[in-house]
């Protein structure tokens, strides 16, 4: 999944990706069907029960993913062209920073619930800006602190939504 020979997003998915996605979708649908089978019926003649709609949707998804996968496996002109056509010369899309970004965001979210919005956001912003090429040790922290404070104040006073202080600090106040 982490490997893609193709160029920038939107240039068309590679055959392997379509097949993989089709299989993932089918697995999700089968799992949904498996879970839905245990849903109770409402016991009324005038109701189809909670399982009916998920079952219909999941059934159609299996058909659609089959069409997708079979469409890419059949020796059609499109597939051959695609196969013959070598991967577009790398447009320079790199997965490493995306993966780092996703993990950093996940850690950031986890830490917000722990030590609160303010410190984590400043660090997160500085880190992400550096990841993306803002190397200045003056401008970057200043921007990070500014954005963090601005959002905090807007949410607290403008929208009456206090951003989280973190469970550790809530405990410390006691």
């Amino acid at each position, binding site marked *: 999944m982490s490997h893609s020979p193709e160029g920038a997003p939107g240039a068309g998915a590679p055959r392997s990706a379509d097949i993989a996605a089709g299989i993932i979708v089918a697995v999700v649908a089968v799992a949904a069907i498996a879970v839905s089978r245990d849903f109770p019926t409402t*016991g009324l003649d*005038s109701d189809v029960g909670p399982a009916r709609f998920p079952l219909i949707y999941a059934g159609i998804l299996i058909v659609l993913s089959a069409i997708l996968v079979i469409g890419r496996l059949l020796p059609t002109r499109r597939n051959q062209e695609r196969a013959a056509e070598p991967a577009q010369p790398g447009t320079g899309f790199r997965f490493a920073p995306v993966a780092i970004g996703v993990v950093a965001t996940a850690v950031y979210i986890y830490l917000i619930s722990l030590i609160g919005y303010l410190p984590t956001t400043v660090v997160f912003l500085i880190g992400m800006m550096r990841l993306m090429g803002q190397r200045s040790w003056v401008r970057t922290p200043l921007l990070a602190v500014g954005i963090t404070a601005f959002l905090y104040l807007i949410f607290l006073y403008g929208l009456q939504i*206090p951003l989280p202080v973190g469970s550790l600090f*809530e405990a410390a*106040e*006691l």
Partner: protein
Amino acid sequence: MKGYRFLTGAVVGALASASLMVAATAAEYPTKPIELTVPYAAGGGTDLVARAYADAAKKHLPQSMGVVNKTGGAGAVGLTEIMAARADGYKIGMGTVEITMLPHMGIARFTADDFTPIARLNAEPSAITVNADSPFKTYEDFIANAKANPGKVRIGNSGTGAIWHLAAAALQDKTGLTFNHIPYDGANPAVTALLGNHIEAVSVSPAEVVNHVAAGKLRILAVLADERSPAFPDVPTVKEKGVDLSVYTWRGIVVPKKTPQAVVETLRAASKATVEEASFKETLTKMNLTLAYADGPEFGKVMQKDNTFFKDLMTKLGMAK
């Protein structure tokens, strides 16, 4: 202005001192702002009552009170959060009748016993309301028709397992009739369906239909209450009609079970004074709600009674888990 402040100060003192003397250890409480958690969205009925309460309570507590909405799961998310909050009195909650309903449906981690009641604020009964064009002029007409056509009378409610569904189901249970319960996504859509004559009746509270009744579009046949509603003195209760049933939705202040007694006493005293505030009463009147103050122990009895009632009813309906 100054005199006014002094006056309210005196009132607070008078009301609070008694309880404070009992609870010398909590003389400090509250030393920082109190957070009032509302398990429903901002702008809704429960939220507005909570905000009016928080506003009026400022005069009776040395610290301010802020409202925070924690929505989701038909109230289960917010109520769970109140239950699990640190029991120090700085995070109190707006409890609703759902406290006594959700635990039986298997979608809540709390039970009614996990909360210490502080004060009930308002209570609204269920009412059987029909369209003004409906052939049913009285409760008797309605029941006679339902008896003649079992399963044909469609009663709209605010959602399966929600209070007004259970009210209609309880009426069905007590009278031995069969209704066709139609769940809607809240009381408003049910009332809209009734206005469009798509259903025969709704079981929502008088407050939710009062505008349409005043405009001559809808007619209330009976209330499922212990006594007649002051707003509709001509509408009979089902008790008068020989059905021993009353179903109320209520809202009130609750705290986690382990909250120190002294803090509970302080909040009870403050709540007692708060509900007497003109601003609070005015808000309820504007929202067509009925002030139904009940102090902690009395409120607790209501909770226990409803808890048993809904547990039995839901078991009978096959909804209990």
